[in-house]
């Protein structure tokens, strides 16, 4: 039922500067792929092309084989939902109203929600545990609650592909784990930017590593997360160990001495 996401030789320029160069990556149908990399490596830029906030200079984003650049914004928003950064608004909508906006790409003009869509929004709110907040104003919520409301909105959008830009920001530990479990169980094709490599390793089927706008590694967490990569891409010295319960690679950092390769004399 779900489809695969294919980012093909994507290049993006902003204000004449190349931000992303020839990045290709594929998210298999129903799988979760993590996009990791240091600050400014172009992760968010790649995502922005997928949810069409940016037009790439060259390259194509395909969902189920179809080029989303050739679709209307509404058509592509029915296939791809996004959790963006800094996306809470200025107006005090209720939680239920915000979640219902997830239906916007499916509805004409101001057409009201159908009974099925109303139930869908209810379910989305329950899935992320904000149903009890349905009538609260979003501006009165905590950052983490607001984040979950926006995730509910994305789920209510009924997309094939879900892209999330640092969705665990503001979330407490329990909700981080809950969210990543939800992503895994959703059956959706998920591309997610994560900063926490341990969470990424636990949650993602595959990881793609960006550095300075280029894809430098991709594969299963065990293939990608090596001490060498952490040193070369992230400039940190860390040990990679297998999780005692499930064998997923986990990273143990040490603050003792940062590696200063690349920038050091």
């Amino acid at each position, binding site marked *: 039922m779900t489809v695969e996401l294919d980012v093909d030789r994507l290049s993006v320029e902003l204000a004449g500067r190349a931000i992303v160069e020839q990045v290709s990556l594929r998210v298999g149908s129903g799988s979760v792929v993590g996009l990791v990399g240091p600050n400014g490596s172009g992760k968010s830029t790649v995502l922005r092309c997928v949810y069409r906030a940016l037009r790439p200079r060259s390259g194509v984003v395909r969902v189920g084989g179809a080029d989303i650049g050739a679709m209307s914004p*509404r058509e592509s928003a029915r296939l*791809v939902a996004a959790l963006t950064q800094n996306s809470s608004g200025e107006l005090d909508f209720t939680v239920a*109203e915000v979640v219902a906006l997830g239906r916007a790409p499916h509805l004409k003009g101001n057409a*009201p929600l159908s009974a099925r869509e109303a139930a869908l929004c209810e379910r989305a709110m329950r899935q992320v545990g904000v*149903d009890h907040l349905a009538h609260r104003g979003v501006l009165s919520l905590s950052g983490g609650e607001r984040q979950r409301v926006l995730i509910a909105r994305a789920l209510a959008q009924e997309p094939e592909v879900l892209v999330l830009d640092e969705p665990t920001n503001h979330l407490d530990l329990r909700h981080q784990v809950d969210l990543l479990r939800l992503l895994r169980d959703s059956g959706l094709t998920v591309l997610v930017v994560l900063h926490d490599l341990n969470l990424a390793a636990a949650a993602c089927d595959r990881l793609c590593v960006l550095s300075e706008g280029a894809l430098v590694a991709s594969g299963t967490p065990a293939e990608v997360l090596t001490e060498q990569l952490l040193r070369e891409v992230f400039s940190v010295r860390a040990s990679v160990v297998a999780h005692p319960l499930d064998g997923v690679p986990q990273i143990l950092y040490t603050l003792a001495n940062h590696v200063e390769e690349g920038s050091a004399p």
Partner: protein
Amino acid sequence: MKINAKVADGAQAPPARVRGDEAVRGLPTASGRPGTAAACAVLGAALVISVLAAISLGSAVIPFGDTTRFLWAALTGGVISADEVTQYQIIWQVRTPRVVLAAVVGAGLSAVGVAVQAMVRNALADPFILGVSSGASVGAVSVTVFGALAGFGIYAVSVGAFLGSLVASGLVYLAARSATGVTPLRLVLTGVALAFGFEALMSVIVYFAPDSEATSTVLYWTMGSFGAATWGALPVVTAVVVLAVVALRRAARGLDVLSFGDESAASLGVDADRLRGWLFVVTALATGAMVATSGAIGFVGLVVPHLVRIVVGAGHARVLVIAPLFGAVFMVWVDLVCRVVVAPRELPLGVITALVGVPVFITLMRRRGYLFGGR
């Protein structure tokens, strides 16, 4: 029972009923909420009564019965006796166009204020933030001083004001444009900056103008008044405002989405740049038409949107129905008070809007914990 069936998958028994009710109440089904319909009916009735009362009252009070009889006669071509002609003239030629204009402009400024605040994502935005009023003043003063647009006769000043406002809006939009489109903050900053420029230009024209007429024109345009309302100018501004309110209301869900920012809008299938351009055209035309007939009436377009949101919430499908109605009623009463308290002289509209609006606004804001743009 329907509610029980719906709740069956909810699994928890006790709060189930509440949840079922909330589902119906909480999800915004356009204006289909019963509360909205009731509010519209009440406000609509209040508007009719207010208009009739405002036509009847004034420096010369004309009994309510006579007022409705004259209006009926005017609308249906009825007959009145010869000694009633003066009163009939006051009712039909002076007060009725004035009160109708007040209602139209009150509705228009409120709706445009709602849209502009969502469009530029700024709580302090009002219909004049994009340089419209100072542009209109320059247009009006130019006509007065240089005698331009003489071909439009008595409407020359209004046409000048309208053109001035459109030129100002156009300049603001072009100056705010960049390769990545028009960002809200750039739009606001450009509007504020260009407004200073237009005011300077206006000052220069007035300073070198040979007569004092230019000064009074400026005063009229910057303070606003319905004193110059005529039947001749009313149809155009009414048509423009009605079309604009309908157009904005039709874009209600788009405005909801836009208020979350361009990134979110893109992910929800809304081209923020395109929608903003469309909103800009609609709001500039409507504001220009209103400024041309009644000057820059401040405060209403800033405060009515907030007042309405405090009461009915942020959803534009509701706000853009309630705000125009409420704004119309509010403006009719403000105008009435302005022309009766110190009759036969008139207070500037801004005095009463501020006197009533400021305390009401602050009280509501403090009591309801109104939030705009976070804590």
